[in-house]
């Protein structure tokens, strides 16, 4: 009997749903273990450190939750809210938050798992139940986020249980309800992903998500500053807590779950088991229904048939698209122009790049408003030294910082961003100097444009003396140009073209960190060269004549020009190394 005959005659072995899910999950675990085993030692150490930190955080949260409960019962807070009502609402609030956060975070993970990981076809054509494939995909997507949420929510809920003397049954029930909540949220997220992908291509959705995620991260990071600007006082805080506690409404399934587990904890068995059972039925129903619907929608190809057919551009639009606006481009050599137009088009068309723009702009606005109040004692001391127009020094420092943030990523990643398409540049007859000039313009132009707009707005808002504006603009233009040269050189030296996902674009080795340090040192040094002559003249002579500004411009400008020249000399021989195996 030949091999093919023996394969055909062999009775296919059918696996049940759960053994198949287990097989698929085991495969994922194997991949994770292999990835960990083959990662660099620094990566392994990093993962272990993160794990330990997470455990430490859980312990800290557990301890803090008892403190939180004491705070809840403090007379200060009791003036605004009923502590018992608030404490009773904690399980509901935590479970509601876990549901919506899982829904949001799983959207991105499921988008990747179902449409961008490219293994669905392989899995669906294997002799495993399709439901098992979907179930395992859901579990794979949910597990990491679920584990993370557990790390934050379980210490709080367990802390509540310990401090309130809840029964033993409370603890496993909390874990079970949390897991079911995450599964239901994951199921709904999968339907949501399919509905969105039916309208917008998956890749585009991923790009927009990347942008939104980065913007949200910046907003969260700056939340303290933003809240500070809005002057939220204690009564607002009490109001917010009261609003939150209203989520614990009898009509909410999350409240059934929250109140149910709390009632079980308090040994109110009938009430507790009834409410918990009700929420389990609803959440389980949502999960089962969404799993079945997702499976069907995926298999019938519903989500792959994008409803909005691509509209054909009218001829006039096509012609318009042929001529990107780059007014002074004709003055540049053709290869430089080609690189600039290509890079500006590709940057503009990927929404993820806007997050790099948003971050410094949000920071800029925050810093601008933060600095409006003045520097207090520091201002008085500096004015005492004889320094005039202090706001200008502050503005230019902030503007340089914003300019650096805008420029650094564009510049240091300019070659890495080429990725696997770099072969087109490397096999074309472009002189290294032309290529570098093109890349320099691509990172410099948008940065300096936005920074100058920022400076103008800052001058307007601060009511600064406009006589200083030309000098400030010159300082900005030259300092950012010098910094651009340095980061471009680092980007040439450590370009990594091997990325698969744009989110993984980075420089090789520790070049990114080194570049940040050296660029920052240059910014401080060059800024000092520009501003010190003016400042010293003001301190020692009472005011700064034109000569002071001239000396500053010559010193700072020469330093910037020298740095650009040296950076280009450093980068040119390294260009041919880009893309060569290490």
């Amino acid at each position, binding site marked *: 009997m*030949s*091999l*093919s005959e023996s394969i055909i005659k062999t009775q296919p072995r059918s696996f049940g749903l759960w053994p198949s899910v287990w097989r698929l999950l085991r495969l994922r675990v194997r991949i994770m273990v292999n990835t960990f085993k083959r990662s660099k030692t620094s990566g392994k150490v990093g993962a272990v450190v993160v794990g330990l930190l997470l455990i430490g955080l859980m312990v800290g949260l557990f301890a803090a939750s008892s403190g939180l409960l004491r705070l809840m019962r403090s007379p200060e807070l009791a003036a605004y809210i009923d502590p018992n009502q608030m404490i009773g609402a904690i399980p509901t609030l935590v479970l509601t938050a876990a549901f919506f956060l899982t829904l949001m975070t799983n959207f991105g993970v499921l988008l990747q798992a179902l449409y961008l990981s490219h293994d669905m076809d392989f899995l669906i054509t294997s002799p495993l139940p399709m439901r098992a494939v979907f179930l395992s995909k859901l579990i794979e997507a949910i597990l990491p986020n679920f584990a993370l949420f557990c790390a934050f929510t379980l210490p709080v809920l367990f802390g509540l249980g310990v401090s309130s003397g809840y029964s033993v049954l409370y603890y496993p029930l909390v874990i079970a309800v949390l897991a079911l909540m995450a599964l239901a949220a994951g199921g709904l997220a999968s339907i949501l992903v399919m509905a969105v992908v039916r309208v917008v*291509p998956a*890749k585009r959705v991923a790009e927009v998500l990347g942008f939104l995620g980065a913007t949200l991260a910046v907003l969260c990071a700056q939340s303290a500053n933003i809240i500070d600007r809005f002057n939220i006082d204690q009564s607002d805080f009490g109001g917010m807590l009261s609003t939150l506690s209203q989520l614990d409404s009898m009509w909410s399934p999350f409240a059934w779950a929250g109140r149910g587990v709390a009632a079980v904890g308090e040994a109110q068995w009938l009430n507790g088991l009834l409410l918990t059972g009700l929420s389990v039925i609803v959440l389980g129903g949502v999960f089962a229904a969404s799993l079945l619907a997702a499976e069907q929608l995926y298999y019938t190809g519903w989500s792959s048939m994008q409803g909005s057919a*691509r509209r054909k*551009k009218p001829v006039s639009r*096509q012609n318009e*698209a*042929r001529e*990107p606006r780059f007014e002074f481009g004709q003055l540049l*050599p*053709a*290869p430089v*122009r*080609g*690189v600039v*137009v*290509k890079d500006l*088009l*590709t940057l503009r*068309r*990927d929404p993820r790049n806007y997050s790099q723009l948003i971050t410094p702009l949000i920071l800029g606005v925050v810093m601008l408003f933060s600095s409006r109040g003045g520097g207090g004692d520091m201002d008085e001391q500096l004015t005492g030294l004889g320094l005039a127009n202090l706001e200008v020094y502050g503005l230019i420092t902030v503007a340089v910082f914003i300019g650096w943030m805008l420029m650094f990523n564009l510049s240091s990643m300019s070659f890495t961003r080429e*990725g*696997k*398409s770099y*072969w*087109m*540049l*490397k*096999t*074309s*007859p*472009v*002189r290294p100097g032309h290529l570098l000039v093109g890349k320099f313009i691509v990172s410099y132009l948008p940065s300096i444009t936005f920074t100058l707009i920022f400076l103008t707005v800052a001058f307007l808002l601060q009511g600064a003396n406009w006589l200083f504006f030309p000098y400030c603009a010159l300082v900005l233009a030259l300092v950012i140009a010098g910094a651009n040269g340095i980061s471009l050189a680092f980007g040439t030296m450590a370009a990594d073209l091997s990325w698969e996902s744009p989110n993984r674009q980075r420089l090789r080795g520790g070049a990114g960190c080194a570049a940040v340090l050296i660029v920052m040192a240059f910014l401080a040094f060059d800024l000092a060269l520009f501003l010190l002559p003016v400042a010293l003249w003001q301190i020692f002579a009472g005011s700064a004549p034109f000569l002071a500004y001239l000396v500053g411009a010559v010193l700072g400008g020469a330093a910037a020009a020298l740095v650009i020249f040296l950076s280009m000399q450093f980068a040119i021989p390294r260009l*041919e190394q880009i*893309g*060569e*195996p290490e």
Partner: protein
Amino acid sequence: METRQPLIEADHLVKRFGDKTAVDDVNFSVCAGEIFGFLGPNGAGKTTTIKMLVGLLKPTSGTARIAGYDVLTQPIEAKAASGFVPDTPNLYSKLSARELLRFVGDLYGLPKELVSRRSDELLRLFDLTEAADDLTDSYSHGMQQKTSLAAALLHDPKVLILDEPTVGLDPKSARLIKDILPQIADRGAAVMLSTHILEIAERMCDRIGIINKGSLIAVGTLDELRSGAAAGRTNGSSSLEDIFLELTGGAEYAAITEVLK
């Protein structure tokens, strides 16, 4: 043929990656008007050799010359004379085919009007006019491959190097490539292509080079290979497939076939 000027020259080319020698002392030349087929099993060193010829990889030793220019010391002149189509297109996903061709035109310093005219011609030739203003990330593999070929032909190169150009193409597009390459060679260009489809090599190529484990083990016309004159190892096999399998390890393939029977 002997009097024609060699436009592609590999002179004792060697490429080592650490301890592994990927290409070991490879010598061959391709003359103007000639189509040279470059064959070899997976991992034999075809793509590495090609990458050295087009300037994507620096040779460990030896010289690669394109149109008489050393790729290492006169890269601008060598690259200006050549067009390259890689095995995986990897185009700029956020550019349309038309924008990509305009970009390539700028890189080669071609006049704007010429780029516009040539782009329209090539897009029409490769049946890409309809999709010319769509971003290439919405293209199929075959469309990307054709865009890549259009980009390589935009500046009417003296030397055209193609790495597995028919992979992923539908029969119509594959036929188009088979029709175009002889025309390019007839206009005096040197064409070098690597392929796994022996029928293409057999039908289209004037000469064939077979590389195995980094070494060029046979070079010549099909008749020369058939008679065993080129390598002195073949035993009068009739088809290129037989010659290829015999030179590169046909016994292994035969064993696999036996198992599958």
